C-alpha cells in the first residue's frame, strides 16, 4: 500500500534541503507525492536504468521509488540526472536478508539546474549488502546533491554497506552537496563511505597536452572516465556502454 506524505515538504526536511521548490510546485502532488513500488522476489535479480535527460525547455522530473528487495535477491539501479531545470530521484530501498542493493548514479549539471539523488537504504535484516557510487560533474551555476542515507537496524548484523561520492566542479559558481549518512544500530557491521569534491587536475591536463592530446579531448577523456565509474558495477556490457554513451552525449551538450 502506498503511504502518502500528507504534508508538503519544506526546506527544513533534511531530505529536501537542496530541492528546487520553485520547480517542485509544478510536480506537487501528482508525480512528486507518489511512490513507484518495485518488488524483487526472494532470490531474484533485477536491474533498472533510469535516465533523466536534459530536454528542451524548463522541464524537470521527480521520481520516487520504493524498492523491496526480498531475501537473497539483488537489485541494481543505474541513473543519470541531467535535467536543465530540476531532477530529483528519491529511493527508499528495503534490503532483505542476504540481499544486495546496488546504486550507480551520475549527475551532469549545467546552467542553473538542480539535480539530486536522495537515498534511504534500509537494512532491517542481517547479512545484506549495499553499494552506492555517485559521480557528479557540475558546470556553470548548477547544483548537484547526493544525500546518501544508510540505516542499519539493531538486529541487522553482518551488513556491508558502502558509499562513494565524488564531484568535479568545472566552474566557480557550481555547487556539489555530498552527504553520506550512516545510522547504525547493530554492532557487527561494515560500512565505508567517502566523499570528495574536486576540479579538473591541471597537472593531468598538462601531461596529456605534452603527449599531444588537445585540451578539449583531454578534458573529455578525464570527465568520461570519471562519470563511467558510476556504472562500473553494471556487468552487462551493452547496457553499461549505452549509459556511458548517454553520459558522454550530455557532457558534450554541456559545452
Amino acid at each position, binding site marked *: 500500500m502506498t503511504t502518502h506524505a500528507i504534508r508538503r515538504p519544506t526546506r527544513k526536511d533534511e531530505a529536501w534541503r537542496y530541492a528546487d521548490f520553485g520547480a517542485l510546485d509544478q510536480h506537487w502532488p501528482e508525480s512528486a507525492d507518489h511512490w513507484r513500488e518495485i518488488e524483487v522476489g526472494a532470490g531474484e535479480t533485477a536491474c533498472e536504468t533510469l535516465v533523466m535527460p536534459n530536454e528542451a525547455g524548463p522541464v524537470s522530473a521527480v521520481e520516487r521509488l520504493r524498492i523491496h528487495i526480498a531475501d537473497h535477491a539483488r537489485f541494481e539501479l543505474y541513473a543519470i540526472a541531467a535535467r536543465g531545470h530540476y531532477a530529483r530521484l528519491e529511493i527508499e530501498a528495503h534490503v532483505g536478508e542476504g540481499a544486495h542493493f546496488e546504486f550507480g548514479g551520475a549527475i551532469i549539471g549545467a546552467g542553473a539546474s538542480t539535480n539530486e539523488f536522495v537515498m534511504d537504504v534500509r537494512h532491517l535484516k542481517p547479512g545484506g549488502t549495499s553499494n552506492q557510487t555517485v559521480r557528479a560533474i557540475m558546470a556553470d551555476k548548477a547544483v548537484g546533491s547526493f544525500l546518501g542515507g544508510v540505516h542499519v537496524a539493531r538486529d541487522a548484523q553482518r551488513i556491508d554497506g558502502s558509499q562513494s561520492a565524488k564531484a568535479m566542479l568545472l566552474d566557480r559558481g557550481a555547487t556539489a552537496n555530498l552527504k553520506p549518512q550512516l545510522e547504525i544500530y547493530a554492532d557487527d557491521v561494515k560500512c565505508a563511505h567517502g566523499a570528495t569534491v574536486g576540479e579538473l*587536475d591541471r597537472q593531468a591536463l*598538462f601531461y596529456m*597536452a605534452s*603527449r*599531444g*592530446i588537445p585540451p578539449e579531448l583531454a578534458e573529455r*577523456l578525464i570527465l568520461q572516465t570519471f562519470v563511467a565509474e558510476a556504472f562500473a558495477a553494471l556487468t552487462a556490457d551493452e547496457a553499461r556502454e549505452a549509459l556511458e554513451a548517454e553520459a558522454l552525449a550530455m557532457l558534450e551538450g554541456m559545452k
Partner: protein
Amino acid sequence: MLKIENLTATVGDKQIINGLTLDLPAGEVHAIMGPNGSGKSTLSYALAGRDGYEVTAGSALLDGEDLLDMEPHERSAAGLYLGLQYPVEIPGVSNLTFLRTAINAQREGRGEDAVSAGDFMRAIRGEAEAFDLSMDHMKRGVNVGFSGGEKKRNEMIQMAMIQPKCAILDETDSGLDIDALRVVADGINRMRDPKRSFLLITHYQRLLDYVQPDKVHVLKGGQIVKTGGPELAHELEREGYDTVTAPELAGAA
C-alpha cells in the same frame, strides 16, 4: 634540430632562465647538468609550454618551427617530447587509452591516418617488454600504482611509441636502480638516429656512462656557463659544480 637563443623565462615574477643559448643538432645527444635550482626543469617546462612558465624573451625553434608560438599539444605534434621528472597519475584513464589517444591526436594534427588497433597493440607489447613493464601495467590507469622507477620506464615507453624528433628527458635517471638505468639507457641508445636528438637533463654522470653524449652543458643561474665533451661530466662528478664553473677555469676547457 632544437635551436634556443637568448631564452629568458620566468616563474611567477621570478626570472629563472636568463638568456640561455643552446644548439642541439639532429642526431646528437646533449646533456645538461647543473646544481639544484639552476633552472633545469624550468627550461624543460618552458619549452613544453606548461602554464605558469612564461618565456619573456628569446626564441626556441624546432626544425625551424617556432615552438613558443604553439600550444603545448601542438609542440608535441611538432615532434617535441618531454619526459617528466615527476610523471603524473591519471586514475581511470588507462595507459593504453592515453597513448593511443595521444598518438592519434598527433597523427590527426599532421593529417595522417589513425593507427590501427592491431598495430598499436603489437607496438606497445614490444615496448612494454623492452622497458620491463607488463601489459597489466599498460591496462591500468596512467602511472597509477606504479613505483618511481616504473613511472620513469613508462615515460620511456611513451617516448618509444610516440617517436619524437627531439626528446628532452628531465632527470629520467633519478630514482632508478642500476638495472632500470641500463634498461632506460638501452632504450635511448636504440632510438638514437641521425634524424633525432636528445637533451638529457641530469644530476649525475651515471646515465652518461651508458649513453655517450656528444656534448655536456653546465647550467647555472639560468645560463649555460660551460660546454664540453663527455669528459666534462666526469670532471663535474669529481670536482663539483663550483670548482668546474669557477671563473678562472671557465675559459680553460
